[in-house]
């Protein structure tokens, strides 16, 4: 795999660079920055996160399981007469159902986030350049399927948008 890395030192230059590349239909593989850059996701035309969907599905699942578990415990497994209330005492199930909804949704979104972004314990992420964690912004472009002339063009384009330096890496 061959990759072109464009290094920027200014946030505004980076945003300009990403916008120019996206406008010319060159696929930006990834961008690394030491801090979140506002408007970068829009410039890269990233799709909206699907995390809310995960939260909804697992929340609904948690609600269902929490409710069914209580219903099973209090009617089938171990019915106890509490203050003469009916065994299937729905109002008293609601707080636990609510807690289960939150628990499932919260844990699910944390795990889904870590899985999807390759983070968490044991994750082995390649750091393209140490400077991307300090004071440099890096645009990564995949040029494996392009010939030399085309990648030359991309290099000049990156330079034209204000990239401080451009490197080609073979992996």
């Amino acid at each position, binding site marked *: 795999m061959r990759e072109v890395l464009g290094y920027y030192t200014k946030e505004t230059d980076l945003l300009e660079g990403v916008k120019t590349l996206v406008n010319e239909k060159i696929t930006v593989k990834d961008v690394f920055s030491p801090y979140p850059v506002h408007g970068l*996701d829009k410039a890269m035309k990233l799709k*909206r*996160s699907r995390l*809310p969907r995960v939260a*909804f599905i697992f929340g609904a699942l948690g609600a269902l399981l929490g409710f069914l578990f209580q219903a099973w415990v209090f009617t089938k497994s171990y019915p106890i007469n509490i*203050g*003469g*209330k009916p065994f299937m005492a729905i*109002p*008293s199930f*609601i*707080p636990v159902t609510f807690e289960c909804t939150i628990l499932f949704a919260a844990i699910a979104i944390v795990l889904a986030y870590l899985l999807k972004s390759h983070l968490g314990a044991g994750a082995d992420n390649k750091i393209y350049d140490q400077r991307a964690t300090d004071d440099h912004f890096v645009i990564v472009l995949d040029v494996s399927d392009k010939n030399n002339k085309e990648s030359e063009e991309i290099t000049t384009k990156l330079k034209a948008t204000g990239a401080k330096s451009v490197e080609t890496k073979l992996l």
Partner: protein
Amino acid sequence: MDGINTRFIFLKKQRRLFIALIAIGVISLIIGVLLYSKKYVWSALLLNSVNYLTIALGATFLVAVHIISRSGWHVVFERIIQAVSMYLPFSVVFMLILFFGLNNIFEWTHEIHHDPVVAKKAAYLNVPFFILRSIFLFVVWIVFALALRHFSRKSDFTPSKKLLIRSRVYAALFVVFFALSIVVFAWDWLMSIEAHWFSTLFGWYVLAGILVKSFAVIIILLAILRYLGYFEFVSIEHIHDLARYLFSFSIFWVYLWFSQFMLIWYANIPEETFYFINRIENYPILFFLNIGCNFLIPFLVLIARKSRRTLWLVVVVAIIVFIGQWIDQYLMIFPGIIKTANITWFDIGLSIGFAGIFLLVIFVSLSRFELIPKNHPYLQESLHFETNHT
């Protein structure tokens, strides 16, 4: 700000429409007085007076919260909220009329000698103290509402940092006073209808309802004014955030509703349960409609981002919530005074009349000054507001 409609013109045909609404209310009132018992008519008057008073009060609270939170997104439609808060003095007029009907609404005014429970509460629940308390609350609320409106208006002509700081001080004081006073108001005007019953959560439950109601009304008004050709600079981003307000506070409302219900249901003490038994057995449809309109529909519809960003859908939900809160208010008042009652044309007609007065006051106060607080420090932030991904 060139080319933007910053001045609201109150057309004659709108005025005629509102006067027609008021006429419907007056006719309903006359028919009601002729057909129904005194208790019924006074209850309906209490219901509508309290309903619109609390909307105006909620709007005043919102104005204050927006000032002290130093947030910017709402500035473009701040004048709508202020206009709603200007109904407060007018609603107090109706509350003063209610003082003449206290005997018909509250049993504690005349049951002291027959009822030992009421007799024990007489130190707090007696007519002079009640009137004194109410008037004190009304006066302070009106002073704050007028002051906050005055500061905002003055900044249109002579903006200054001093004015901003002063409005922050007033807003902070009002928020504290509001939080405490609304509980007293809820005890006095709503909980004491059933003087035997008590619930420590009741004040906060009423507070949650007030906030939901005000958000619903502000959304509906914003939609009406946009339909009339104003506020075209209010974007879908602002609607999105208003819908979030509605969504989150309807959850807050049901949280308090359920906390109150479940504790009483679980403890199962006769002194407390009769309140809910009366409502479930005599008003089953309204009781469950209340939860449906105020929680299930807003929750299930507005949970999706797409529906929060669709104006007509948000407005439909706001109308449902507004009706739901009216039902909630109905359930607080009627079952305590009349054991079995139904919503009749009289109730609805009277509510329409009150809505006419409410809209008339709001439209007049909107037409009084500029639609945008043009010197507000956060105006530009508000005009270019974007909600991020959430």
